[in-house]
């Protein structure tokens, strides 16, 4: 239960130690509103879950498998829709609780349309075995940020997938290439040995194949990370706020360092180090984020957007980040 209040405390600490130009940020979100957000999510999701838990087995038991799986399918569609909604609302909530020079951000868009677009784009990406993902991801970034503002200034995002495509192709090509290389290597060795060869080299062939499988499993996450590193760099550059531009300079290796560092920290401290992850992640973002341009503080007036009362409960429930 305390984790909502702990999160609020942690953010207050992190924001207050983050300097932007001449003053620090301020977080005004509270544990109470995050708890409220959590309760809302429970209230919405619980009937869903109970319904599935009772109706699904009951339908199966009565031999209505099509109906049962149709229901699950609908349920998953609803979950994806809510996932998109969650991501939008989390960003909106965070901006509405982030203050600088006594001014906050926010959005007047409730996010339902964004959730619909999210569902559609996830569907498009899924039917193309995610090959079309870069294009969809960039469109979603634009839709999300275009709806946001800080004070009177609107965020504008003009991200396109140019140059991101080949990195995404590597996610598919590198593992396939590795597997082909492994197979060629293995068959080459078998061929050179001929029939009835000593079993020992055969064992080492199996080891090579096994090793390559492992490499393939490591390769996919690594290549995905490689893509996301480029995506975030490009996304920050494509986003503006009034006359302010952004830049993000974390490389794939730096991202990898962050994740391995988090993992190592958790292992070395037997899990207690996980409490430090929030700080590490935030400071990583802040260190690599650059803000350019000028801002006329006397024209930066208070935000007129509606400040949501509930917090990012949905994002919390679906475990998605805000950005």
């Amino acid at each position, binding site marked *: 239960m305390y984790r909502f209040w702990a999160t609020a405390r942690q953010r207050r600490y992190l924001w207050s130690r983050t300097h932007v130009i001449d003053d620090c940020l301020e977080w005004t979100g509270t544990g109470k509103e995050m708890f409220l957000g959590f309760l809302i999510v429970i209230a919405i999701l619980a009937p869903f879950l109970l319904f599935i838990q009772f109706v699904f087995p009951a339908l199966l038991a009565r031999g209505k498998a099509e109906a049962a799986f149709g229901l699950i399918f609908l349920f998953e569609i609803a979950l994806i829709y809510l996932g998109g909604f969650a991501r939008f609302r989390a960003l909106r909530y965070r901006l509405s609780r982030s203050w600088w020079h006594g*001014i906050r951000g926010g959005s007047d868009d409730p996010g339902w349309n964004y959730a619909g677009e999210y569902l559609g784009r996830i569907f498009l990406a899924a039917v193309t075995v995610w090959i079309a993902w870069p294009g969809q991801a960039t469109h979603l970034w634009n839709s999300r940020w275009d709806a946001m503002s800080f004070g009177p200034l609107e965020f504008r995002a003009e991200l396109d997938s140019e140059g991101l495509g080949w990195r995404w192709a590597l996610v598919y090509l590198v593992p396939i290439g590795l597997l082909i290389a492994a197979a060629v290597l293995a068959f080459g060795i078998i061929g050179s040995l001929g029939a009835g060869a000593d079993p020992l080299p055969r064992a080492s062939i199996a080891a090579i194949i096994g090793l390559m499988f492992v490499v393939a499993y490591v390769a996919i996450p690594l290549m995905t990370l490689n893509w996301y590193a480029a995506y975030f760099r490009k996304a920050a550059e494509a986003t503006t706020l009034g006359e302010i531009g952004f830049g993000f300079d974390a490389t794939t290796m730096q991202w990898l360092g962050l994740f391995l560092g988090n993992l190592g920290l958790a292992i070395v401290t037997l899990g207690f180090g996980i409490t430090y992850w929030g700080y590490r992640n935030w400071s990583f973002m802040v260190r690599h984020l650059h803000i350019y341009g000028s801002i006329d503080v006397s024209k930066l007036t208070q935000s007129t957007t509606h400040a949501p009362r509930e917090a990012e409960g949905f994002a919390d429930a679906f475990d998605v980040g805000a950005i």
Partner: protein
Amino acid sequence: MIAAKLYDGVTAHPHDVRVAFGHQCLTLEQDGGWSDSVEAAQLKRIEVSRASIRLGRSDTPGWRLLLPGEAAEDVRTLLGREERYGRWIDRVGLIPALAVGAAVTASVVAFGYVAPAWIAPHVPMSWERNVGGAIVADFGELRCRDGKGQQALEALVERVSPGATKGPNGIKVAALDVPMFNAAALPGGYIVVFKPAITETDPEALAGVLAHEIAHVRRRHVTEALLRELGIGALIRLFSGTIGANAEQIVALSYTRSNEAQADSDAVRSLQQANIDPRPTAALFQRLAKEAPEFSAQFLQSHPASGQRAQKFAASFDRREQYQPALSRDDADALFDICRNHSPHQ
């Protein structure tokens, strides 16, 4: 007068102001002649560090007064002590708050531990029937179906606990061709015995094992374990006829130590009443304790120290007693062969 910076919450422009601390209020002045007074009740601390103090106003969002660190004493006089761990905790103090928190947590855990034992006896056996039946059906192909063997197995249950297989809540026993030394009580009064527990023991020792499992059924330990391990939600799911757990999970349910001790005591008494020699059961437990852990781990899991339980059975041996065989010669042979005609790949 202290120099400070003011954000008015209307624009992001910082105003240079001079601040004077008065009685229950704060006065702000600016060079152009502008001045304002804010009551202490409207002020709140936003952030306090050694170098600076940031105050906000509860009636004006975004209004921020940035004071230098040296104003700390004045701010304390005006606003009182700073909130430290949060309003509720500050009111009672950290240590009492921690103690209360620990007590609440402990009682929740204790309730979770004790509640299943209270609730289990009140769960109608009929709710569990479907679940147990489904699990036995799950094992389907593995079930040993030799008619005479099945009769002998049921006879052994009747011998240990007369009348146990009768009535709507009667015990249903099944032998399974699974190469693992184990026996388990399932929800709904089902007891499954795995093949090695039949072929690698004599009927007397098997009688002891069955008596132990019957006790688990009779005392509703199975329901208790279900509630304990799957949570109170298991109750609702029992009622709806599906448990949402697979057969392996149910077989691997573990009882508490006191449940096990109770089942052992009941088993000793059953053997006495049935006039069956307890020594083979004692020897079986002794043997299981010595055997490689992978064979005995499941059965011995969470059981009282096996040496002790072997002793419990051994101690109940009475040399003056005229013990009777657990099964007739024919029944014992039939039981031994219960899985003979079974071939899972037919």
